[in-house]
């Protein structure tokens, strides 16, 4: 007889769990909450400036431009209040700008790294300089954003780039044994032209499948098991909800850029070999002079550490450093420990290199 209330309680608990599960699986979390203003647009690209919260005289003199990958939304950098890298930077006195590439349409299928690195980024930088009133700036590139910023920094070494931070940068594709994507996209098995003829742009769903298939059990089962086990913990549920909102928000990759990623990089490693051609010119990594910080996630299965290490021996930067952190491709910056390890180190490195007097100081 005493078991009846206990069973009722269990049923109520189960019902509540299903309600929570339904909510996090079918709704979008409130993400990208840090106040910002739109300061420039071009085609689908948008440049945002985050509203400073530190008085100008206490801010760092060098503005920082964040460049994220092309095939995911950049709000992973500003995921949710209290767990936002952007919010952290703004509170530390940086003048932060974010370049959001937007969603490429069928009309953008010809866009290549050439366009992103040499047309869009320089124009956005022009705007950053105009607004912040400095000739020097810092840039942070993550994943394919790191490829683009590296190309830009090598092609235009005298454009005022003072500090370059590369996060999980897939630059060296020489070690095919350790790069699963390189196996999958080998020209023996993967016909990039056939894919692009069918779709124009590389569909976001296919990119998402590729990323998840690297760790199928974790992504398709373990992730949901972890949620189910923690449905009574609001903090974990909130974090899961925000991350799931980002993970499921897939966008396509422009066809031209996808072709370069596969043919020039995954199949032929042209950037590291000094054979990559952008706007008719060879990309010479030896021209990159900015202070360089490369952040490597030791457990990264999308960009294994071997892809980000060789850059240091190729560039002309005198001030260069590799920083290794535990964690995965995204967890390194958006995981629960990011604010204890990765963010403070980036702040420490960048802070001392961002305090020169703005405009004209060399």
């Amino acid at each position, binding site marked *: 007889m005493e078991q009846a209330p206990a069973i009722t309680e269990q049923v109520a608990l189960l019902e509540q769990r299903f309600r929570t599960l339904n909510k996090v699986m079918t709704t979008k979390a409130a993400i990208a909450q840090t106040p910002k*203003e739109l*300061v420039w*647009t*071009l*085609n689908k690209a948008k440049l945002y*400036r985050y509203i400073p919260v530190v*008085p*100008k*005289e206490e801010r760092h003199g060098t503005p920082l431009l964040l460049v994220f990958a092309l095939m995911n939304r950049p709000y992973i950098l500003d995921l949710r209040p209290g767990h936002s890298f952007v919010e952290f930077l703004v509170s530390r006195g940086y003048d932060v700008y974010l370049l959001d590439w937007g969603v490429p*349409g*069928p*009309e953008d299928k010809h866009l290549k790294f050439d366009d992103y690195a040499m*047309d869009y980024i320089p*124009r956005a930088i*022009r705007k950053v*300089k*105009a*607004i*912040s*009133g*400095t*000739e020097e700036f810092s840039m942070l590139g993550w994943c394919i954003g790191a490829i683009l910023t590296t190309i830009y920094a090598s092609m235009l070494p005298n454009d005022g780039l003072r500090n370059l931070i590369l996060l999980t940068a897939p630059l060296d594709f020489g070690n095919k044994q350790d790069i*699963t994507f390189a*196996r*999958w996209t*080998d020209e*023996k*098995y*993967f*016909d990039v032209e*056939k*894919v692009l*003829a*069918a779709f124009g742009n590389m569909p976001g769903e296919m990119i998402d499948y590729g990323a998840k*298939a*690297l*760790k*199928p*059990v*974790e992504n398709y*089962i*373990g992730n949901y*098991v972890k949620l189910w*086990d923690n449905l009574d913990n609001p903090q974990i549920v909130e974090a899961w909800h925000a991350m799931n909102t980002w993970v499921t928000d897939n966008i396509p990759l422009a066809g031209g850029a996808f072709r370069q990623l596969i043919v020039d990089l995954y199949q032929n490693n042209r950037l590291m070999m000094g054979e990559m051609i952008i706007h008719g010119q060879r990309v010479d990594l030896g021209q990159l002079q900015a202070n360089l910080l490369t952040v490597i996630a030791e457990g990264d*299965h999308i960009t294994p550490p071997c892809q980000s290490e060789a850059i240091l021996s190729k560039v002309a930067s005198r001030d260069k450093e590799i920083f290794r952190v535990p964690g995965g491709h995204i967890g390194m910056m958006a995981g629960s420990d990011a604010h204890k390890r990765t963010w403070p180190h980036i702040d420490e490195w960048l802070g001392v290199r961002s305090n020169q*007097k*703005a*405009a*004209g*100081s060399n």
Partner: protein
Amino acid sequence: MGEGQAGGSKPFDPLESFRGLRDIYLDTMAKAMVEAVNTESYAKTSGAMLDTTLTMSAPLREGLEKSMVQVLEQLSLPSRQDIITLAERFTNLEMRLDDMDAKLDRILGLSHPTQPGVPAETAAKPVVPAAPRVKSNPASTKPAVSVATHTPAAAAKPAAGPKQAAPAKKALNSVPARIAARKGAK
């Protein structure tokens, strides 16, 4: 009481052992699958599946596209290609406008150092002589005024506070406001 709390606070969970087994199974499966997908045979199989799917769907897709173009033509409606062409022209126009915007900013920066061409946050600040910069760079062949106007922020940087700068920033960051400011400057 204390003993009861220490020893019996956690209720018996019949599923606990099941969870333990499940986690071990998932860990083992995860490791096996990571190894499986990182093999030549997986790459070959997945590549073949994708290739077959694309080859089989190509005639259907092409037929559908052709008939859709014909239908749209009959209805005097623009096709996807027409819209793509238009969108590309818009982007080209945007690029040209962006270039013109930059050139205009430079020209205004030269002729009116405190007008929109000047970086927003420094616009409200008084311009100080650029002589020290020229001194520090004796190799420069540019006259002092040219240096000051080319990089107005350099001259304006040392003075004024955020209270002055804030309205200028807000006013000048939006495109309509900048156009209005230019008209005013003329």
